[in-house]
């Protein structure tokens, strides 16, 4: 009996402690980043000012006044919204076709799509730069939206495919008997039924698009540059200005963290869809 109660005590107190420790460990860099963003560049590197310092908003004023934060932010919003819409626009019909009218090669196509995610991005960096420059698309929003949607398309199709597979085929067939055409099947039956899954996919793709850095940094200079580019730009040739860099980073991740916070229920539901059933 003693052993049992010992174990349960360990479980009772040990587990939350462990969970909180891991949670805090992961959260610490973010906390540190936010904290540092309120320090002067000089305070930021002094260990004695790690916790105790005089907070300042200078970094934020500096960022909005001198570094054109709002233009980058606007580009990020435009890129993420349009890329998400485009991804769903292509992804939903593709996943629909594969879920409800599978052919012998459907599985191969799905694997092939996923395999494009296994290719290191660096492998196609130079072709991409030459092509985009050659086509006159370098540093355009069109290019960034296209590239960002295409790299996320395989994941979107996989997610949507999984959700759509959960919808009984009979319901779609009932729709066919009731006189619905393919577009109607998607609009009247599929989308309303898979709404939760589509919302989760959209949210995740939006986050991926917002966070995309590899291509946005390399294929833009000014016009189409997103917040990732702003952070990268503040890596600063003059040395590392931690305060400023932290402010920019905080302002870049802030919106998406807030969005994620509000939608966490939907995200968790979406990501565990199928797993709990």
């Amino acid at each position: 009996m003693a052993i049992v109660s010992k174990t349960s005590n360990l479980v009772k107190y040990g587990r939350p402690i462990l969970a909180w420790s891991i949670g805090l460990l992961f959260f610490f860099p973010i906390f540190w980043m936010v904290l540092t963003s309120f320090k002067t560049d000089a305070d930021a590197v002094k260990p004695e000012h790690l916790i105790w310092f005089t907070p300042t908003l200078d970094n934020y004023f500096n960022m909005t006044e001198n570094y054109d934060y709002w233009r980058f932010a606007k580009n990020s919003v435009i890129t993420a919204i349009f890329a998400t819409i485009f991804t769903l626009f292509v992804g939903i019909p593709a996943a629909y076709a594969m879920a409800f009218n599978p052919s012998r090669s459907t599985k191969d196509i799905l694997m092939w799509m996923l395999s494009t995610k296994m290719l290191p991005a660096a492998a196609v960096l130079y072709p991409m730069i030459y092509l985009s420059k050659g086509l006159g698309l370098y540093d355009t929003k069109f290019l960034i939206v296209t590239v960002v949607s295409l790299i996320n398309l395989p994941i979107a199709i996989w997610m949507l495919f999984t959700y759509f597979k959960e919808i009984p085929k009979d319901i779609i067939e009932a729709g066919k008997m009731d006189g619905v055409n393919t577009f109607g099947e998607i609009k009247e039956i599929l989308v309303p039924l898979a709404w939760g899954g589509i919302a989760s996919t959209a949210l995740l793709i939006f986050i991926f698009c917002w966070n995309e850095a590899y291509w946005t940094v390399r294929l833009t200079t000014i016009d189409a540059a997103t917040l990732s580019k702003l952070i990268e730009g503040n890596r600063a040739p003059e040395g590392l200005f931690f305060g400023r860099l932290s402010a920019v980073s905080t302002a870049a991740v802030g919106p998406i963290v807030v969005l994620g916070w509000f939608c966490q229920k939907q995200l968790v539901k979406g990501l565990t869809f199928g797993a709990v059933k």
Partner: protein
Amino acid sequence: MGHIVLKNVTKSFENLEVIPPLDLTIEDGEFAVFVGPSGCGKSTLLRMIAGLEDLTSGEIEIDGEKVSEVPPSKRGLAMVFQSYALYPHMSVRKNIGFPLRMEGLVKSEIDARVESAAKSLNLTDYLDRKPAALSGGQRQRVAIGRAIVRDPTAFLFDEPLSNLDAALRVGMRLEISEMHKRMKTTMIYVTHDQVEAMTMADKIIVLQSGAIEQVGTPLELYNIPQNLFVAGFIGSPKMNLFTGKEAENQGAYTLGIRPEHIDIVSSGGLWKGKVGVAEHLGSDTFIHVHETGLAKVVTVRASGEVDLKYGDQISLSPRSDLFHKFDPKGIRLT
């Protein structure tokens, strides 16, 4: 009108032929039932008529018009699925009205037709509920409502009662039969339950491995099964079938006699045996008789309650005019 003709229809999945060449005519207004064990191709055949499954070859005609290339929605057929296949995100009213909305009817017309369909199916009180808030029987009624509201050329039912409990099944069976008598529209009904087939059909099509074993009215199938498969499949409890000496004595390779065509006599019966399990149903008693010298246990159906116990010796007298005789290939002899 709803005259459906299948001409030399076949279906293969990859290299597997599930429906060998098949011809069938379903007359206008007929209640046709496809019956057979699971995997016999009955649902595939129905789905081919519906247009949900392509034909590998052959032709389907509805009212003289070739429809093989016509999409399901344009064939004028309505289908009721085993899983009900209701739209879970729509209320009962919207579910029933959906095909009409897709046809492009005006709202007042849709409402009127939905109300009248709901009334005939006792669904008026449930019109604003979602399918999740309905019982299985009510869901199936909604599915039927969605079918009748369109006034189709023919109804297709794909094992519509299989998901219901036994009591409800009997009730719904009657309702569908009554609906058919009232509407006089062609209905094609798929089931694996021979009782459903016998009670509802004008014409039964018995299928095995995609091929038609026999087509006929319920009583034709019961009285004159053309082969061993139909003999064994139609009727409950199953027909007694023996091979061996007793069959040879009667001039057959396989001899069949239905359990209800064997009388229990006090003495002088053709077969004698020992009572095994007796199943007392009240209205009937099914007696399984062992040690008769025949190849198999003999099942006897006696009407009413019969006072027999395990191990009792009994004498059986089959009505020899009701023997079914089959040749070595299983084809009916007489």
